[in-house]
């Protein structure tokens, strides 16, 4: 069981959360010219690291806020969590 620290509610059990994927993926800016390759990279391609991974979580059965977590994909250790605006 993972214990995840919601930046707003504190430590809660994994059961209250939903995963939201790689948080380093950045959508190309609206209104800017974007090549097909850049767009496909954004939609489909991932770094998929073994080790530290920055990712989105959603406290869906709690405060319903999205936030970021830094977690090790090999050990499942969670280093820290932050709000979306903060640097993690």
């Amino acid at each position, binding site marked *: *069981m*993972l214990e995840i620290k919601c930046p707003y509610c504190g430590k809660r059990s*994994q*059961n209250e959360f*939903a*995963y939201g*994927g*790689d948080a380093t993926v950045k959508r190309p800016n609206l209104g800017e010219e974007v090549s*097909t*390759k850049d767009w*496909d*990279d954004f*939609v*489909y*391609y*991932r*770094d*998929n*690291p*073994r080790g530290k*991974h920055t*990712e989105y979580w959603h406290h869906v059965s709690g405060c319903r806020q999205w936030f970021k977590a830094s*977690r090790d*994909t*090999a*050990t*499942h250790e969670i280093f820290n969590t932050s709000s979306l605006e903060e640097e993690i």
Partner: protein
Amino acid sequence: MQNYSIFSLVKNAFSNHQDWEVAWKDPEPKKEYDVIIIGGGGHGLATAYYLAKEHGITNVAILEKGWIGGGNVGRNTTILRSNYMFDANAHFYELGMKMWEDLSQELNYNVMYSPRGIINLAHTDGQLNAYARRGNSMRLNGIDAILLNREEVKKMIPFADFSDTCRFPIVGALMQPRGGTARHDAVAWGYARQADSMGVDIIQNCEVTGFDVENGKISGVRTSRGEIKTKKVGLCVAGSTTLLADKLNMRLPIEAHVLQACVSEPVKPLLHNVVTFGAGHFYCSQSDKGEMVMGGDLDGYNSYAQRGNLPMIQHVLSGGLAVFPNFSRLKMLRSWGGIMDMSMDGTPIIDKTHIDGVYLNCGWCYGGFKATPSSGFVFAHTIAKDEPHELNQPFNLDRFHTGNIIDEKGVGPKPWIG
């Protein structure tokens, strides 16, 4: 190579089974090979076997970081099926189904192929309609499929919850009668033994640490047991695909996720088919030992750990109890996890790459085991001919740029949603 038969069994009984030949050798790596296959799992071993058998390429090495068959080929729930709707998947997996039928004879190794039928339960009329559509697509592609009504399903699995008050009533099912199971370890060992007998070197405890690429062309691999020259390298490393692709500066539409399975204590014969629950993630079959072999969904977050977490086991088994309430008294024996190479459209990638002589076999998501023979067959063709077989042409890497993705489940590029 010693042939396995009733006569060899009797003969060796007289010497207390002490004189059996080793099934495969343990050679030192040579300086150079025509083809190197990285990954001694089902797909890697099958690829080496078909390279030797179909294409006469026998100067081949399989490099395995651990021991052969220790990864996903030994961790899956052994299900065989070709119940796909899309043509590309249907044709490819159906080749596999046909190959399973006489694989034991071909390999002279009992893979315990058991076409016991796979039953996908439907719990709403809409779901049954969708299954009817899928079944029609399958039949148009020459694959067996029958639609079962509630009473027909009840005859097959009378102990499922057919009560009036159940939350997910069973309204019918789609069945592929030729679907079934096989003994996963035997598949790895059978391919290994035959590949070895044709001259393939199976090199275990040999981790690939780097690649030598010159002018966009592969010239060798660096391993924990020294450098080995080669002109062609095939990657069959499932969950570790990204880790090796990183060494080739290749970014892929793949995420690693952990998928768990579990077995119960052995009980007397009860469940005679493979059954999938249609209102949640749960599927089950009974092994020849009597254990209920159960699986479900990914744990739901990126992971390279070959172990999962209890909340998902609980979630999967609660789905199981919704359909089979009598399982509540089964004791669980063990659970384990394997790393899935989840591709972003749920379909495998079997293709050449931008590096000359590097070939990719990955993205198997939930379902690599059933494809072991067909994957090995078309991947060997791709490597030997330096062009894809017509059956794996749709599984090209370029589809993520051309838009020809094969999204059978319609999930989108979020594999953890399942």
